């Protein structure tokens, strides 16, 4: 399987008045086409930052210091260096090629706009052409098979609309509609675009198994249950059938039954949309459910990457082991990881896990361990190997 996204020595730092936070430190990671890659780690281990870094949405005062993130898109060979793209190009990728589902469906939706509005926004933004041609189609139908007085009156308008939508369909951002969309009253002349977007929205809502989608489309977020919201958010993310779907703890805030449905949904998406999923979670159980491969992070660094069975059956990195032990199992008393997560401001030198590591060696305190492939598709960053 070829890579979809290749992250190389990515470094993200937060420059705050209290000092520099090493959120991500020299991270190498590949996301393969059509796979679900899980990123697992404690809170603050930098998994969310990795996700945001791919979208270049690191919040102020964070900054991507160095590294490269390459998106291999079928359309353009050689791939795209995301970190070198102009902000405009980047925007055209966000929500279209790469989209994201956030942890809190409640806060992820804008309370003052309807679900429909917020989803069709994506279409209007990224799929103008399609909408344009669809709208043109409609007008053509009208021109073709309508007659009678009313029609004859409307015809000129229709013709004009046709020209308009045609331009839009041809893309290259024509002047006329652009001007129109800025003039409050005339803006509504483009209503057919909205309609089309609306239709797409409803079908998308149907896809994410929302009952009675066209009613829901008209609802405001606060009128929906948590599960519904999350589905809506996912629908929004899938709107333009992205190549990569980043899901940041999508299930954490939901109760168990809903969680199950969500995971089911994600599996399905992967199957029929063929999209790769970057699944960020702190919950190994969940990860084992959905992921093909799992990457374990600790204090901004990658500890171990491997296929899901592999990592659950033969975890190598002491931290991974500790994590697995920390998962409560029936009839086995719970292991906890000694010590606390490394201080973000002055992290321990060498391997950041060594203060908590049961099998730490002197070298661990000096030099950091490189990520090396110990067996097929199984990489570990630890001096033990």
């Amino acid at each position, binding site marked *: 399987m070829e890579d979809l996204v290749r992250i190389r020595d990515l470094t993200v730092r937060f420059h705050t008045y209290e000092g520099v936070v090493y959120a991500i430190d020299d991270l190498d990671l590949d996301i393969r086409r059509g796979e679900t890659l899980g990123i697992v780690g404690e809170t603050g281990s930098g998994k969310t930052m990795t996700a945001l870094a791919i979208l270049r949405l690191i919040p102020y005062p964070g900054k991507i210091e160095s590294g490269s993130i390459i998106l291999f898109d079928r359309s353009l060979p050689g791939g795209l260096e995301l970190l070198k793209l102009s902000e405009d190009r980047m925007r*055209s990728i966000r929500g279209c090629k790469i989209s994201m589902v956030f942890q809190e469906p409640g806060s*992820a939706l804008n309370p003052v706009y309807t679900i429909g509005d917020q989803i069709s*926004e994506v279409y209007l933004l990224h799929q103008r052409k399609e909408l344009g041609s669809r709208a043109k189609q409609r007008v053509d139908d009208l021109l073709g098979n309508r007659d009678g007085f009313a029609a004859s009156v409307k015809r000129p308008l229709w013709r004009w609309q046709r020209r308009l939508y045609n331009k839009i369909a041809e893309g290259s951002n024509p002047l006329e509609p652009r001007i129109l969309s800025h003039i409050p009253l005339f803006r509504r002349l483009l209503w057919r675009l909205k309609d089309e977007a609306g239709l797409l929205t409803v079908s998308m809502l149907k896809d994410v198994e929302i009952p009675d989608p066209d009613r829901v489309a008209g609802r405001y977020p606060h009128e929906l249950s948590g599960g519904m919201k999350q589905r809506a958010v996912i629908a929004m993310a899938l709107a333009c059938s992205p190549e990569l779907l980043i899901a940041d703890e999508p299930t954490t805030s939901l109760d168990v039954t809903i969680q199950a449905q969500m995971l089911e949904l994600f599996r399905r998406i992967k199957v029929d949309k063929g999209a790769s999923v970057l699944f960020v979670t702190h919950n190994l159980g969940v990860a084992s459910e959905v992921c093909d491969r799992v990457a374990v992070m600790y204090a901004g660094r990658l500890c171990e990457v491997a296929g899901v069975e592999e990592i659950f059956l033969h975890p190598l990195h002491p931290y991974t082991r500790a994590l697995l032990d920390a998962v409560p199992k029936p009839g086995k008393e719970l292991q906890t990881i000694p010590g606390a997560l490394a201080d973000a401001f002055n992290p321990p030198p060498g391997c950041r896990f060594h203060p908590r590591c049961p099998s730490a060696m002197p070298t661990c305190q000096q030099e950091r361990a490189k990520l090396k492939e110990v067996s097929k598709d199984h990489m570990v960053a630890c001096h033990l190997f």
Partner: protein
Amino acid sequence: MELRSYIIRRLLLLIPVLFGVTLFIFGVTMLFSPIERASLYVSGIRDLSDLPGIIERFGLDKPFFTQYGTWITQVLHGNLGWSLAVGMPVWDAIRSFLPATLELAIFAAPLVVFTGIFLGTRAAAHKDKSIDHVTRILAISGWSLPTFWLGLILMMVFYSLLRGFFPPGRLSVEMDFVVHSAGFIRYTQINTIDAILNLNGPVLLDALKHLILPVITISTVNIAFIMRLMRSSMLESLGKGYILTARAKGLSERVVVNKHARRNALIPVITVSGYVFAGLASGAVITESIFTYKGIGWWAYQAASRLDIASVLGFALFTGVLFVLVNLVVDILYTRVDPRVRLGGGVQ
């Protein structure tokens, strides 16, 4: 809740408020001795012999609640009393001075609200950039300006340097003639509007010339205020999750700020704008007195400084009503801006 019943319920709230307000003022004025209050009606010491008569006529020596009662019954019969300050019934006074103040408010309020919101948005969108710092400095300075002093300074500049360019009052003598001439119909008493309705250019120009300085004076502080508020509430909503979502959708910064962030940020601003408008309309006492711009605030000042109790009470009633009405409008506006808000009930 259904709109009509809600409005009715809110209007019922008027009663306790107005009752409290008037009762309180009445209490304050009762701190005067009957003679002191009677002496408002005599011209000089030659008439001191009349004081007992006046006290008796107006029942100024009656117990507190008797006097308050008589006043209330008066009001319920639609008689707000006589305004000594301007020599006409209080009700007429309100009617004849309100247009001037409304005119001021009509020009000031949009200026205040829109400038404030615009600058606030810009500042928040470019937090810690130069524009943010500039606007912030402007805002804090404007916020610290004593209105009366600003007025005086403006007068100093525009009366003495550019003499007669922005004259005081509401109209110059000439235009006053025109306005009172038969050909000119005073639909609203609001000069600018009347001028437009009568298609009379000179009057319009003259009225505007008289308006500029008061409007500037009254707006400065409020603009600063709204701006700061808008900035902080913008910052708040820019920190929200849905902004990240919007960005992740690939929306341009302009859309993110102006569509997704602003509408949420407006909610607290609306309340304050309501108060600001109420403040403007309930009389910019200081501004109007400085520029002898005879609106309701000027009247209130004259009344209060002459202890014209009837007028002060009337004015208090007026502001009370205004206050409650503005609150009502604000609440209704809420429901338009924020779908979560239900009339009566708070956020769902």
